[in-house]
Structure formats: C-alpha cells, structure tokens
C-alpha cells in the first residue's frame, strides 16, 4: 500500500479521530481540518492527493469548500470523497452532483475506505498520464508544424521557377495545398507555349509533399531544357515510382499548350473529368482520364500517349483535382461533377466561369471546415510573348552539349525480345541543346523507324493487316507470338550529328536483318495512307529533310536539320 497525503475535514471530533486513525493505519499521512475554511487553507498549504470532506459543517459547508478546492487544483485530478450519514439514494446523488467524486457513509468501514482510496489513486495516475501525453502530443504537434513550415519553404524555392502568374492563367490553390497533396506547376517552353501540370498526391501532410519536390524539380528542369511533355511525364513517373511507397501515387493532368499549332495535348491519369470551353462559350469538350496515376506503372509499361485538342485563341481549359468534386457542405453532401458542369454551362460568358466556380463552391461549402482542397486552374490559349523572360530562363538550363559525334548501336534478337531502345536513343539526341525543342517530334521519328525495322524487318509482320480494326488485333497477336519465338535477327541504329552555333544536322540510320522490300514503288504509295496505318511516312517527311531507303530496303536513313525551318 502506498502512502498518500489525505486531508480530512470534519467538524465532529469523534468522527475525525476515527477516520484519521483508519487512514493512518493504512500507511497514509493525514492532515486534519475542523471546518470548511480550514479545509481550503489546509489544501492550499499541503496539497494533499485526496480529500475526505464532511458535507455538513458550520460556516463554509462541505460542498462550497469542495468547489474552492477543485478550483485551486486546476488541471490536477484531486478526488473529494464526501462523508455523510445520509442514506437515501437521492441525497447521495445530490452530493455527487455538487462536485464530489464519491461518498463514504457512517459508520466508516475501513475496508471500503481503503478500496476507495486505492481506486482513486489509480484514477489520479491515469489522469496524470493523460495530461502528460496531452502535453507530449502538443509538443510533437508544434514540432511537426515547424517541420512543415521548413518543408514548405524548401518546396516554394523549387516551385517558384514557374509561370503560374502568366497572364493567360488563373488559379486557386491553398497556401498549404502541398500538404494536402495538391500541386500546380506551369512553365514556359523555350520554343514557345507552355507546360502545365496539376498533381494530386495520395495522403496528406509530409508524405504527400515529399513527392511534389522531385516532381517540380524534374518538371521545371526538363521543360526549361526543351524536353517534351511526354519525356517529362516519363521521368516524373519513374521518379515517383522509385521513391513513393506502394499505394502512394500522384493523380495528374498535364497539358502541353502549343500556340504555334493552335492545339493542346493533354495527359490525364486518375483525375476527374475536366473541360475545354471554346471561345464562343457554346462548346464544352470533356477531358477524361485515360491513364493510371503517376508513380504506378514501371517505365516499360508507362503510357505517355497524349490526347490532342485543337485550341484557338480565347479557348480555355479548366483543370481541377477531386477536391472540388468532393467538397462537402455542413450536411455532408458532395459538390459533385454535375454541379460543376452546370456552373460551366450556365456562366454568362467564358471569362466568368472561373469566378463562378469559385463562388459556387464557396457558397456550397458555406464556411464549413474543409475548403482547403479546392485546387482549380484556368489556362487560356493566347499569343505568347516569351522572348525576354525566356532568355534568362533558358540560359540557366542549357549546357553546352555534344556537337560533333556519331554512334553505332546494334541490338541482337535476345535483347530485342525485352528491350526498347527508343527512350535511350532519344536521351542521346536530347543531349544536343538545339534538338530539345523538337524532342517530341524526334521521339516520333526514332520510334517509327525502329518500329518499322523491328516489326516489318525482323518479325516480318505484314503492315497491311493494320488497315482494319480486326486486323489490328490479329497483327498484335501475331507480334506477341513472334517476339516470344524470336531467336535471331538484329536491329542496328546509327546516329551522327554535326553542329554549328545555332544549327546542326542529325543523321539517323536504322538497319534490320530482314529481307527488305521493293522501295522503288514507295514514292507512288506514300500519299495513299489511310486512317489506320498510313500516317507514318508522311509524318516523318514533315519533320525530316530527307528519308531514303538503301540496300535491299532493310536500311532507312533520315536526315534532320535543326532549326526545322532551315534546310528544305
């Protein structure tokens, strides 16, 4: 039995004497008071752990003395046991209602008293533990908030490289959005136009923010260096896949705004439907997610396919994360996609849509707790006047790069079965600063030439199969089967580059081990391409200065001058 400090307040000396002895017998220290005033003073002076208080005392009665003592005790739990000879349930209940924690009836039973004292002591310990834990939690919380502040400062330094404040962009993003997992990035491209990326990381707090930093770094770094949006997405996906734990990913919408083509390419993974509103306000195109979020697929399975939309001056795109759709009002209803579409439809004019959406969501949420997750961005197609800003930014990103070089890369059958060399070839080309502006197109060239060499040359698949939807299925089934059975053959890629200060020539040669084909008829056929499969060569010829076949048709040579409008 432990020794507690017990205050006994009773005006009856016989009762006090008995109680005092009982409590002291049990190993406790006793402080006595004969009335209410003495009890309060004694409590203040000695700070006992438990109080035995007679209810009926002259002067300050037990209940009032208890009230004062509880106030002095403040946060500490000091149990007060009323001493009473009352026996009816109502009176006893009234005792507890007035602030006591228990009662002890006369005659005092020492067994009961000991049990009560022990029980209350357990409660006091628990209470102290709770207070301690509460303080500890508060301390850890303060610490975490401080860490978040630091993390946010670091993040802001990475993210400030962007152009979210460009005149053709309006956006809404909570200042601490990065800790809700929401990210908005926008950067001008050196060749004109801009990249925009809206990201929504799983989770909250630092785990959500952690992914945003490498993503922003990659996005800004690569865009400034002239990489295409597909390469950026590929890099970001790979980075996130490698650093995020299983189950964590980033839903994203990426836009490549190309004013020179009056078009926008869009990649969406895991985000809700977004809208493209034409300048006349009449037509709304729906942009839907076709992909899985970033950070899920491995590099070889990642699909960087973009969806292309024509976008004229004055057309505008609205992107959001699911925070807006899922914004809740006080009764727990969600805002919903339908309401959002209606706001877009019912706006007086396209310029009003952005503020209409903000107002509608604010009104719906009605000042209830969660309005921090509503991330929204409007991107308007405009003429971009890049020049001044550009010179500063691009100088920062571009390094010298290789100018005069050649390379020879040969892949045998065993490698061809499992390895796609196109990204690697693309990376090599991207080392040349002048080629970065046409990175996307070059990717297409290499991919097309390699695909032809591998599929028609090595695997000997018949391209005419691809002219119908059923044929496509058949084609890819055959392809799978032949790759699995492949035992010999090769594809050889040679690249060479000669460059000057502001121009250069890239020569790309792809040779395969196949039988070639009669390319003398090519020239006649080249413009007969139909919708399904004939896009290849004409597309190549738009980019390349020349495309010619050599040998028995198993070697193709493409020559590209940069900048593209030079040469012929």
């Amino acid at each position, binding site marked *: 039995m432990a020794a507690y400090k017990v205050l006994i307040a009773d*005006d*009856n*000396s*016989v*009762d006090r*004497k*008995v109680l005092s*002895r*009982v409590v002291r*017998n049990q190993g406790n220290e006793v402080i006595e008071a004969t009335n209410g005033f003495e009890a309060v003073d004694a409590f203040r002076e000695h700070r006992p752990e438990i109080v035995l208080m007679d209810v*009926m005392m*002259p002067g300050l009665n037990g209940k009032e003395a208890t009230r004062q003592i509880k106030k002095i005790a403040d946060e500490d739990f000091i149990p007060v046991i009323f001493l009473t*000879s009352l026996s009816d349930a109502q009176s006893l209940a009234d005792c507890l209602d007035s602030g006591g924690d228990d009662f002890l009836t*006369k*005659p*005092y039973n*020492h067994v009961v008293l000991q049990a009560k004292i022990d029980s209350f002591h357990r409660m006091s310990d628990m209470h102290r533990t709770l207070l301690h834990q509460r303080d500890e939690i508060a301390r850890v919380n303060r610490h975490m908030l401080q860490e978040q502040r630091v993390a946010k400062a670091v993040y802001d330094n990475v993210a400030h490289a962007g152009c979210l404040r460009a005149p053709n962009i309006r956006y809404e993003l909570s200042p601490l959005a990065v800790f809700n997992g929401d990210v908005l990035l926008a950067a001008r491209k050196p060749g004109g136009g801009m990249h925009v990326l809206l990201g929504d990381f799983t989770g909250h707090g630092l785990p959500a923010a952690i992914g945003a930093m490498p993503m922003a770094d990659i996005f800004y770094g690569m865009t400034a260096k002239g990489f295409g949006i597909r390469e950026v997405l590929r890099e970001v996906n790979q980075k996130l896949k490698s650093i995020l734990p299983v189950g964590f990913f980033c839903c994203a919408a990426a836009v490549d705004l190309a004013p020179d083509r009056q078009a926008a390419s869009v990649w969406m993974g895991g985000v809700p439907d977004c809208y493209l509103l034409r300048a006349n306000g009449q037509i709304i195109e729906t942009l839907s997610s076709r992909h899985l979020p970033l950070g899920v697929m491995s590099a070889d399975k990642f699909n960087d396919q973009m969806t292309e939309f024509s976008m004229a001056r004055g057309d505008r795109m609205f992107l959001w994360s699911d925070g807006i759709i899922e914004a809740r009002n006080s009764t727990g209803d969600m805002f919903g996609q339908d309401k959002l579409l209606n706001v877009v439809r019912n706006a007086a004019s396209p310029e009003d849509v952005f503020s209409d959406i903000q107002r509608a969501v604010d009104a719906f949420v009605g000042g209830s707790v969660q309005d921090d997750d509503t991330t929204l961005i409007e991107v308007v197609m405009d003429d971009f006047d890049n020049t001044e800003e550009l010179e500063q930014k691009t100088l920062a990103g571009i390094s010298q790069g290789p100018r005069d070089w050649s390379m020879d890369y040969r892949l045998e059958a065993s490698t061809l079965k499992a390895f796609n060399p196109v990204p690697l070839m693309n990376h090599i080309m991207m080392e040349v600063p002048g080629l970065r502006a046409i990175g996307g197109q070059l990717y297409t060239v290499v991919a097309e030439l390699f695909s032809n060499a591998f599929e028609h040359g090595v695997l000997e698949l018949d391209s005419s199969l691809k002219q119908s939807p059923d044929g496509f299925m058949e084609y890819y089934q055959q392809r799978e089967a032949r790759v699995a059975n492949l035992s010999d053959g090769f594809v050889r890629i040679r690249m060479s580059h000669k460059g000057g200060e502001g121009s250069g020539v890239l020569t790309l040669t792809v040779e395969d081990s196949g039988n070639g084909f009669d390319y003398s008829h090519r020239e006649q056929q080249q413009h007969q391409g139909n919708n399904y499969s004939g896009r290849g060569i004409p597309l190549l010829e738009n980019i390349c200065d020349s495309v010619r076949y050599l040998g028995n048709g198993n070697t193709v040579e493409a020559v590209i001058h940069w900048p593209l409008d030079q040469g012929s």
Partner: protein
Amino acid sequence: MLDRDSLDVLKEIMEEEFVPLIELFVRDSDLRFPAMRRSLAEGDSEAVRHTVHSLKGASSNICATQLAGEARAVELLAIDADLESLPEAIDALEASYRAVREELLTLI
C-alpha cells in the same frame, strides 16, 4: 444497544487511541443536550438539527447504532421545525444516551 462485534473491530483499529476516543465521545455528547435545549428555548430548530446530526454521526461511529437511529428521528423533527414534539423527543433521546454512556464506560 452497542454493536459489540463492530466495537471489537473499532478497538483493534484504534488500539491505544480507543480509550481516549470513548472519553472524547462522552465529553462531547454530554454537552450536546444542554446545547439542544438552549437552541430549543430560542426557537432555533436549525441549530437543534445541527447538534443532533453531529450526535447521530458520532454515535454510529462508536457503534451505538440504535442511538444513531433515534437521533435521526429527532433530526427529522428538527428539520420539520416541530417545536412541540421536540422537547419530549430530546428527553427520550437523552435517556437512551445515558444507557449507552454507562455501557461504554464499563469498557474502559
């Protein structure tokens, strides 16, 4: 009149303080009755109540359970301010007390 078994337990608890306790009870309680009668003469039933309440509590702790019960009955009269019934009730209570007092003094 006295709960002997409980009194034995009390003796074990109080040890050397048992005798002083009995003496204290007797000294205190002797004074209660004059006090009650004085309050009654002043018509102060509330003061009577306090005094008999204290007697009740002390009696129960000293294991004079019957006396405690009788004191409770007087207390109820005092709560009702029944100034007519109180004098006789107090007399009866004193008589009971005297018996208990005598028995207690034989123990020490």
